[in-house]
């Protein structure tokens, strides 16, 4: 579905991504792990075209998107939930979703499906998004990404600040999205959350992918966990 080959990204004079190779197979959920500052967010932003790769190639769905503008990448079928959620606080929940749906009102049935996971959105439908709580904003950010079916979903640390109950519905949501053959790239620090969800795992460090493998392997192999995630697992639990 999406492949990154030897991607380098510079931000100003800083060389952040130093040759990222990553393949996201169709319909699978890939988890991207790594310690703080490893370059996970930068990877997602490079995919979205918010930073442009200075070297290497990104191919999505058969076409090269290395130099494509962000808006066109989005229209090609990639949805993005940024780390800071990027909700429009001056707009209502409804208006946020209208913009995300791109053409016209969001589909009714799909909305009901989303309300199933995130009932708060229904409750605050006509309220300015800025007045939502942090967790509710996160729900809105995710809802915006899935309000229309997209081919690929990029999600940056969705569990930040969410209550366990909501995390549970998030897991359900991702399961159902997978069932609809949506390809997902999920950046996460909370290993327990992604343990049951992920098909495969990529681990980043210092702007490179240092490990790729099936989730089952990492999930069972404690030594490998220790080696790859080591302290970062303890500090983030």
């Amino acid at each position, binding site marked *: 579905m999406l492949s990154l080959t030897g991607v380098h990204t510079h931000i100003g004079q800083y060389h952040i991504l130093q040759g990222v190779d990553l393949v996201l197979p169709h319909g699978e959920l890939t988890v991207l792990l790594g310690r703080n500052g490893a370059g996970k967010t930068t990877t997602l932003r490079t995919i979205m075209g918010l930073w442009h790769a200075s070297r290497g190639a990104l191919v999505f769905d058969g076409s090269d998107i290395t130099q494509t503008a962000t808006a066109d990448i989005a229209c090609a079928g990639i949805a993005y939930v940024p780390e800071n959620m990027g909700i429009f*606080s001056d707009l209502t929940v409804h208006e946020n979703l209208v913009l995300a749906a791109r053409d016209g009102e969001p589909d009714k049935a799909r909305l009901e499906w989303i309300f199933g996971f995130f009932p708060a959105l229904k409750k605050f439908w006509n309220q300015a998004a800025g007045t939502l709580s942090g967790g509710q904003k996160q729900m809105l950010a995710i809802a915006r990404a899935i309000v229309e079916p997209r081919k690929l979903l990029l999600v940056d640390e969705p569990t930040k600040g969410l209550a366990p109950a909501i995390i549970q519905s998030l897991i359900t949501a991702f399961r159902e999205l997978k069932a609809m053959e949506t390809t997902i790239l999920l950046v996460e620090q909370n290993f327990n959350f992604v343990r049951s969800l992920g098909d495969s795992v990529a681990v980043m460090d210092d702007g490179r992918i240092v490990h790729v493998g099936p989730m089952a392997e990492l999930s069972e192999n404690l030594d490998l966990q220790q080696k790859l995630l080591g302290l970062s697992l303890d500090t983030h639990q």
Partner: protein
Amino acid sequence: MTTTATSALADSELPRLRLDVAPLLLLPILALLALPLVGSFPTWVTLTIAGLAMGMMIFIMASGLTLVFGLMDVLNFGHGAFVSVGAFTATLVLLPMQGWMQADSVLLNLSALGLAIALAVLVTGALGWAFERVIIIPVYGQHLKQILITMGGMIVAEQMIHVIWGPDQIPLPLPASFRGVLLFGDVAVEKYRLLAVAVGLIVFAAMFLVLNRTKVGLLIRAGVENSEMVEALGYRIRRLFVGVFVAGSALAGLGGVLWGLYREMLTAAMGSDLMVPVFIVIIIGGLGSVGGCFIGAMLVALVANYAGFLAPKIALVSNILLMVSILLWRPQGLFPVAKR
């Protein structure tokens, strides 16, 4: 991007956004405070309406500027050029059509005025489009160069006005039916000021509707807050930006026509002279906020009119004092725009 810090801040600040009425109350409070100082009720009404009329015109000119800044972080120091060009373009219609202008018929007067405004808006809109292509694009994202280059653009535009229309001031008489005053008992109100207030209210209402009820409006407001996310949702922010820039230039042109008629005299420098109150207005309102710009324009104009009556010597300095006191109260302006 600084992420966590700003979003944490936003959490505590944003919920007040919609319910923030304190700035709205400033206007009536100011007007009421001025009443005993002015002393006479009819004078007070005249001053207040004069202030509102002036405020409406400044708002029309400033609104585009503040939106462009909010959306793309571009501040056009040459915005005043559109004001002058708009006013001078209007003379192309108004001077040959003096027959209609001086006819004793509101309809003919308004038609001539309408035609002039239409032409001015078209020309300044087109000019804005060209200005954006030639002047702004190359310096996008570089504030220092932006200031310099847009200043340079304004110098060139002003000089071109001299080249085309000659070096002299051009007198622009008001249409017959908008000259003079209306009397309501003791209260005298200049007719043209009422017209200016009406046009200003129409523009404000139209902008309000577009920004709140249309998708383009939603996109503009979303873009002011977080243009990257608008892109990531699949919209080309550039097109939006060009549209807003053109609309803002056209509004400046409209403001120029209104202002020119108000002063009944056109000078090429009228636009750059107006930049000072315009900047004060958008600073007071909060850079990027249209509502703030409206309130700011009214405040500035009312204060200028009251001060002009009470203490003429400090009339222009009064704006600075107003700005300083507002900024001491709210350092980001009346309606701070939430930014990423």
